[in-house]
């Protein structure tokens, strides 16, 4: 049956329903495009034959192939679009720098798209707050205090806070830090928010 490969790609994404980004299936995409090319050429040949020899009995087959073409197109578009949604989510979860193992799963065009998304988000955030800029990825949950108690979950190295003090983030050490400074590290799983 036609369109099996495209379905396989959709299933692959659907299995990871929590928003993880699987490796870009370049091979699958190429195979689907090849199938579409073959379908198109067969259709073209049959259309010519139907026209010049008046063989209207070929029309149902042409229509069937055309449906398969449209189906493949739909699957591929949905595949690419859903991946973009996932990549956009990564910007909010990880911050502007992605870890290597995530970036590794993106195609060259997706990396480019991520860069552009980052840029437009940044220029939007700069335009807020009467010229001062506002980081809208911060404080998604309303803050109760400016400083919070955090515990390190792994060695992260040195960390500088706004007054210039350098803190060594060592595994299992506890610190009292400005909230806005560590929010992203908490999201990345480096620090843990301790609520007493």
């Amino acid at each position, binding site marked *: 049956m036609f369109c099996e490969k495209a379905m396989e790609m*959709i299933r692959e*994404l659907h299995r990871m329903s929590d928003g993880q980004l699987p490796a870009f299936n370049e091979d699958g995409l190429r195979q689907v495009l090849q199938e579409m090319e073959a379908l198109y050429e067969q259709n073209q040949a049959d259309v010519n034959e139907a026209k010049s020899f008046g063989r209207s009995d070929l029309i*149902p087959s042409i229509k069937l192939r055309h449906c398969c073409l449209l189906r493949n197109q739909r699957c591929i578009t949905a595949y690419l679009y859903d991946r973009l949604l996932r990549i956009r989510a990564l910007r909010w979860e990880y911050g502007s720098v992605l870890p290597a193992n995530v970036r590794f799963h993106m195609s060259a065009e997706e990396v480019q798209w991520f860069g552009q998304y980052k840029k437009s988000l940044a220029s939007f955030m700069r335009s807020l707050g009467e010229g001062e800029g506002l980081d809208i990825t911060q404080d998604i*949950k309303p803050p109760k205090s400016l400083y919070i108690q955090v515990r390190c979950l792994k060695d992260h190295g040195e960390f500088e806070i706004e007054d210039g003090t350098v803190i060594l983030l060592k595994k299992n050490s506890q610190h009292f830090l400005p909230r806005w400074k560590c929010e992203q590290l*908490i999201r*990345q799983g480096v620090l843990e928010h301790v609520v007493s």
Partner: protein
Amino acid sequence: MSTQSYFPVPPGVGMEENFLSLDDILLSHERLPVRTECSFPRLGFLERSSDAHDIPEGTKMELPLWLSKGLYERKRKVLSVDLPKVYKEGWRTVFTADPCVVDLHKMGPYYYGLGSQILHFDSPENSDIAQALLQTFIGRFRRTMDSSQNAYNEDTSALVERLDSLEKALFRSGQNGLNSFQSWEKGQASQLTASSLVLNYRKRKLADVQT
């Protein structure tokens, strides 16, 4: 509770399909029994049971919903679509007798979705099918809602197992609501948590190392 920033394209409502929704694409891959009303030259290889060059008129075969929908025309009959057996009279009476006992995951898992899509094909039984779908949903909804609102910190796999994909989504959002309410009551709602996406990635990385 964790805040998620990945929102997949939602499936369409009722008879509409959402073009980019992964769920709807999977749904439209469900197979329907059809009978061809004209011959399809040069496509004999699609029918595995015969070696013929063409698909002759009157062949009974199974085609995915998207293809049946694309080929189906009211004016010029290219194919006629038969009902899958779970939507036929016999099963419909089972559903109306007690909708709660049937395992919709086995029957579907897109029982409601496929059922609404079938209404695109003019069948004399359409209004009965629509009625049966609605009554089945109403009959089961209360139970789904109750259990999603009350099963806190419990193993729900046995409950979820028998639900249709639509009901599963409803159950999940009910559970999310319950969990966030509980964490608010315990005063944990303001605690900053690691993103579940990041955590899942790390789990997988660990699994990669182990194998």
